[in-house]
């Protein structure tokens, strides 16, 4: 999945997982894993690449990483970020 969403690109993130959406003025707190995914998506990573990164950095099974990433991406879609 390729993403080039302006909304996603505009998100303001800090290293502690605080996310500010300048479009809506809403703010969020994401986990370290969520932050990895968001930054990956901002760089243009695919879901497969995110899963591979989580498997490599978090030591989780590929199936678990895939499920969690899919759920996270679904939530981002609900927010209109993708």
């Amino acid at each position, binding site marked *: 999945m390729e993403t080039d969403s302006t909304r996603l690109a505009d998100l303001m993130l800090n290293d502690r997982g605080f996310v500010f959406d*300048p479009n809506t*003025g809403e703010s969020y707190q994401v986990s370290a894993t969520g932050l990895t995914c968001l930054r990956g998506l901002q760089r243009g990573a695919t879901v497969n690449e995110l899963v591979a990164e989580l498997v490599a950095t978090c030591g989780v099974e590929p199936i678990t990483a895939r499920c969690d990433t899919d759920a996270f991406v679904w939530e981002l879609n609900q927010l209109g970020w993708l």
Partner: protein
Amino acid sequence: MHRGDNPQPGSSIVGALRLAWPDAFIVGLVYNAFESGIYAADGPDVCHAMPYPTAGLAAYLTRLAEVKEATPFDWFMPTFDAEIALLAGAVGELAGLGIGVVLPEPATLTQCGKARLPQVAAKWGVAIPDTAVARDLSEALEHAALAGYPVFIKGPFYDATLVRTPAALAAAGAAILADWGPPLIVQEPLSGSEFNVMGLGDGTGGLLGHCAVRKLIISDKGKGNGSVVVRDLRLDEITRKVIAETRWRGPFELEFIRDQRDDAYRLIEINPRFPAWAGFPAKLGANFPAAWVEWMCCGTCRPLPTLPPGRFFLRHQIEVTGDMEQIATLLEALPEITNQKLTTKSKAS
């Protein structure tokens, strides 16, 4: 000039002007000796009590002339909707008194008032909440019965009350009629985040600058006690459309709700003045009141930077101090007006 639980724009504007010109001579016009901004450290150099605009144009201009004679000033920036409605058609009379003012055209004000907004917004292609305009309580009750409760009942300038029953509507509507007169506006309540856009129109359809915020903290009076700068091209586009269509001249505030049902912005109202948060962008380098003074004086103004999203303000109440002698001075100037208002609620400036 009040900055309490229902803050008004005047004090914020004075503070912004002080940022640009610390030594400017600023005259504050007030309706109530207990307006807290009178006593603020960065407040006006002098304050005078004014009659409410409901006293009529002649009384208002007579008092302005007295104020100008006592404490000469060159430019006047009304910050109260009812003042602006009264004075928009009296620019010539004000010039005759040596008072410079730049205001929207009277026709523009009428067009953008709450009563006409449903018609003009449809023409502009700008979404608004379902709204009906009533000449009296009876019509308002009919509109509400058709729309279904709850509804907002609003006056032509101020006051908006959410009512859930005909009895509540009648009570709120009667209070609005007593304070402001007709019409009454019956409007559907919307769920969603509230956004405001403040800016300056150049009178030819262009924008000198604007700043969009989302309310973070909303008081029980519906006031934004905290807001954050946002950037949404849709909001910018609607703002540009409204200002272009109206050829708006001067300060404005557009109030929106981002409707949860379809994520669309719906325009709630157009305020023909700076909002109470006008001092916030000024502190970050976008001084709209100073730019407007420059525009009035010179026909041009300093560039207004676009503020970055994420900057926010929180309203912070402090105690200001005064002496009863100051109250007495204000009362003596206009006893027939200010004495009675000392014990009533403040609505203005």
